[in-house]
C-alpha cells in the first residue's frame, strides 16, 4: 500500500514539474510588487496596467534602497551586445549609476522580455518592434513626452504615439534593407561575352534582375560562385528575411494601390510578384530548395562574405557580419528589391525602424530617471555618439547626431545615395502585420512551397485568410 502511494506521488510530482516550469516567475513576481511598486502592484494585479498607470508616482519611494536608481536594458540586437556592455561600463564609471545590459538571443526577445518583466528586477529599458509589438506591452510603457530622447527626435514619425498622445516608444536606429550585392563579381560578369548587363546600374527592374541573375546562375562555374543568391534559409535565424522583410513589398504596393496605411483584411493583389521573386531566390540559389529549411542566417552571411554568392537580401545591420572577409567594403552595394510592381525606375530601398526604446513605467521613479539620464547621455555625449557611429554603426533619428556622426558603412552610404538621387524609399509597412502568428504561417507555407511539399495556394491562404483571422484574434 505504501509502495503504491509512493509511486502515485512520484507520478504526480514528475508530471507536475511541467506546470511548475511555466510558473516559476510567480514567486519572484510577488517580490516585485513589495519592493518597487508598493500598493499599486497589488491593484495592478486585479485590473491590468490601468491601475498602475494612475499611481506610478507614489509607489512608496521610501522602500527603495538605492538613491541613484539603476538601469537595466534588455537589448534586442545580438550584433551589438558587447558594444552596449562596454558603453554601459563607461557610463557607470562616469556617472556612478549601475547599468546592466542583457541581450536576448536571436529570435527569443519576446519570451525573454516576458519572463524578465515578471521579475523583481525587471528591465527598466526594453524594446518593441513597432505597433504590433507595442500592443502587448503598451501597459508597461512610460510616457516619454518630457524625455530628452523625445525632444531630440527629428520627427514624430520615429515615435510610437498612442491615441491619447502618450509617447510610448522611440526609434533609436534607422535601418535600410535591400539586395546587398558584390560589385566585384558583377563587374566580372559584365565583362563576359554575352552578358545581359554592362553595369550594375542597369538592374533597375525585376525583369532585368531576373534576366541577369538567370544568366549568372548558368555561368556560375566561370564566375567562381556557388549561386547568385545567398541561400534563402528558413531557419528561424533567417526566415524573417522572407516572411517579414520580403513580404513587406507586396503589402506596401497593395497599401499604395488602396491608399491606406494599414488594413484589417489584405487582398493579396501582388502575390504573383511575391511568388516571382521567391522563385528567383530559391532557383538561382547556392543550395537546392530542399535544403533551405535548415539553412541559417550565418550560412547566408558567410556565403556572401566569402564571395560565393552575388546577392544577399539583408540590411545595413548586416555590415558587421560580412565585412573583413573576401568582399572588400568598396565592393558592397545595395539594390532595391524589385518585384515587378509599381514605378520601378523610382523605387528606392526599404527604410524604417523596428527598434523602439520603451521605458518600463512599473520601475521605481529613481530607476526611471536613471534610465532617462542614461539614454540622454547615450545620444548627446561625445562618447555615446562615437560608439553609435564607430562600433555599433547606427544611423539614428536624433538631431544630436550631426553629419560627422554618420557611421562608416558602405551599405548606409548606398542607402543615402538612393535617397539623394530622389528615389522613393519603401517604408517598413511590415510593422502593421497583425501578429507573429501571421509571419509564421506565411513562412511555413513559403518553405513548403519551396521544398515542393506544398503549393502556392497555401501561401495565398496564409497571406490573405491568415491576415484576417490573426487580425481578429489580436484585436478582439
Amino acid at each position: 500500500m505504501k509502495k503504491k502511494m509512493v509511486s502515485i506521488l512520484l507520478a504526480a510530482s514528475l508530471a507536475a514539474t511541467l506546470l511548475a516550469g511555466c510558473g516559476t516567475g510567480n514567486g519572484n513576481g510577488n517580490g516585485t510588487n513589495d519592493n518597487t511598486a508598493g500598493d499599486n502592484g497589488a491593484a495592478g494585479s486585479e485590473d491590468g496596467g490601468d491601475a498602475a498607470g494612475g499611481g506610478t508616482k507614489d509607489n512608496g519611494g521610501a522602500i527603495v534602497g538605492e538613491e541613484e536608481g539603476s538601469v537595466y536594458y534588455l537589448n534586442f540586437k545580438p550584433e551589438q551586445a558587447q558594444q552596449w556592455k562596454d558603453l554601459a561600463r563607461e557610463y557607470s564609471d562616469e556617472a556612478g549609476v549601475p547599468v546592466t545590459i542583457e541581450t536576448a538571443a536571436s529570435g527569443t526577445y519576446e519570451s525573454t522580455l516576458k519572463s524578465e518583466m515578471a521579475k523583481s528586477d525587471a528591465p527598466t529599458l526594453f524594446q518593441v518592434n513597432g505597433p504590433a509589438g507595442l500592443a502587448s506591452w503598451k501597459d508597461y510603457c512610460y510616457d516619454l513626452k518630457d524625455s530628452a530622447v523625445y525632444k531630440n527626435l527629428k520627427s514624430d514619425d520615429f515615435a510610437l504615439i498612442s491615441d491619447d498622445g502618450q509617447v510610448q516608444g522611440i526609434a533609436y536606429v534607422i535601418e535600410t534593407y535591400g539586395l546587398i550585392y558584390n560589385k566585384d563579381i558583377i563587374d566580372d560578369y559584365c565583362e563576359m561575352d554575352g552578358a545581359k548587363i554592362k553595369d550594375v546600374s542597369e538592374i533597375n527592374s525585376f525583369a532585368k534582375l531576373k534576366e541577369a541573375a538567370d544568366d549568372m546562375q548558368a555561368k556560375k562555374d566561370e564566375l567562381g560562385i556557388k549561386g547568385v543568391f545567398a541561400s534563402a534559409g528558413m531557419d528561424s535565424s533567417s526566415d524573417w528575411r522572407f516572411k517579414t522583410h520580403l513580404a513587406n513589398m507586396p503589402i506596401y504596393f497593395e497599401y499604395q494601390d488602396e491608399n491606406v496605411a494599414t488594413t484589417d483584411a489584405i487582398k493579396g493583389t501582388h502575390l504573383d510578384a511575391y511568388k516571382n521573386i521567391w522563385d528567383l531566390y530559391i532557383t538561382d540559389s547556392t543550395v537546392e530548395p530542399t535544403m533551405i529549411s535548415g539553412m541559417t542566417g550565418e550560412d547566408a552571411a558567410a556565403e556572401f562574405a566569402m564571395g560565393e554568392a552575388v546577392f544577399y537580401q539583408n540590411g545595413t545591420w548586416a555590415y558587421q557580419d560580412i565585412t573583413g572577409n573576401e568582399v572588400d567594403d568598396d565592393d558592397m552595394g545595395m539594390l532595391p528589391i524589385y518585384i515587378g510592381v509599381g514605378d520601378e525606375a523610382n523605387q528606392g530601398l526599404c527604410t524604417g525602424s523596428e527598434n523602439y526604446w520603451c521605458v518600463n513605467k512599473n520601475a521605481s521613479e529613481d530607476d526611471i530617471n536613471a534610465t532617462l539620464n542614461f539614454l540622454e547621455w547615450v545620444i548627446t555625449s561625445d562618447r555615446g555618439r562615437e560608439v553609435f557611429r564607430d562600433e555599433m554603426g547606427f544611423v539614428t533619428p536624433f538631431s544630436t547626431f550631426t553629419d560627422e556622426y554618420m557611421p562608416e558603412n558602405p551599405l548606409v552610404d548606398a542607402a543615402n545615395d538612393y535617397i539623394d538621387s530622389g528615389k522613393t524609399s519603401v517604408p517598413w509597412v511590415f510593422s502593421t502585420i497583425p501578429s507573429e502568428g501571421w509571419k509564421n504561417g506565411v513562412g511555413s507555407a513559403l518553405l513548403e512551397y519551396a521544398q515542393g511539399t506544398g503549393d502556392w495556394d497555401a501561401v495565398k491562404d496564409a497571406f490573405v485568410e491568415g491576415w484576417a483571422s490573426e487580425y481578429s484574434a489580436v484585436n478582439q
Partner: protein
Amino acid sequence: MQKSLKRYFPVFAFPTLAAFTIGFFIPFVMGIYLSFCKFTTVTDAKFIGIGNYLKILSDRTFLHSLWYTAAFTIVSMVLINVLAFTVAMLLTKGIQGTNAFRTVFFMPNLIGGIVLGYIWQLLLNGILANFQKTLTYNSAYGFWGLVVLMCWQQIGYMMIIYISGIQNVPGELIEAAKIDGARPAQILFHVTIPMVMPSITICTFLTLTNGFKLFDQNLALTNGEPSSMSELLALNIFNTFYGRTGYEGVGQAKAVIFFILVALIAIIQTRLTRTKEVQH
C-alpha cells in the same frame, strides 16, 4: 519510536516541504489560476473564466501535437525498453569488457538534452545532406530523428535498471528451471521477465513520462519545424505561451490539460504493470 518520529518530523521534513511548497506547490496552484486569466506577465493577471480552454478547441496545432506526442511516446517507449532489456541481458552474461560496455552505454545519459539535440541535428543533417534534404524537410524526419536521439540517450539508463533487476533474479530459480528442462526462451519468458517486473514497471513509467514531457531535445533538434508539425506537446505549450501575443493564458490552460493527461497515463500505467509483478 512513534513519539520521537512525531517530534522530529518537522525538523527533518521541513526543508524538503518548504522547497516543495515554494518550488512546486505555489507555482502549481498559480499555474492553474493563471489558466483562467488573461495576462502578459505572470504578475498582473486578469480573471476571464474558461475562455482560454475554449480557445484550445479551435487550435489545430494542439491536437496535432497531441497525436504526434502519443505516437512518439509509444514508439520510443517500446524501442527503448526492448533494446535496453536486450543490452542488459547481453551484459549480464559475463562477456569480456562488460564494465566498459556498461559505462559506454550509460555515457550519453550524462549529456544534457539541448547539447544532444544539437549534436544529433548536425549528425543527421550531415547524413541527409547527401540526399539534399534536412531534418526539418518533413515532420517524419524529425519524428524518427527524435526517436533515434531518445534511444541513444535513454537505453543506457534503462539498461542499468534492468541489469540490477536481472542480477537480483535468484540463481536457484534459473537452475531449477534448467533442471526441469526449460529452453532458454522459456526461462526468459517464464522466469526472468516475471522476476524483473518491478524494473519493467519503473522503466516503462520513466520512458512513458519522459516521452510525454520531452522538451529540450525537441527544441534543439527541430524546434517544431516545419510548420509546427514536429512539435511535441511541451514545446507546443511553450510556443503558445511565449510565441503568441495574447495567448499566454491559453498556453497555461494547455499546461493544465497536459498535467492531467500525464498524471492519468502514469497512474494507469503503474497500476497495470504492478498487477503483473510477482509478490515475494
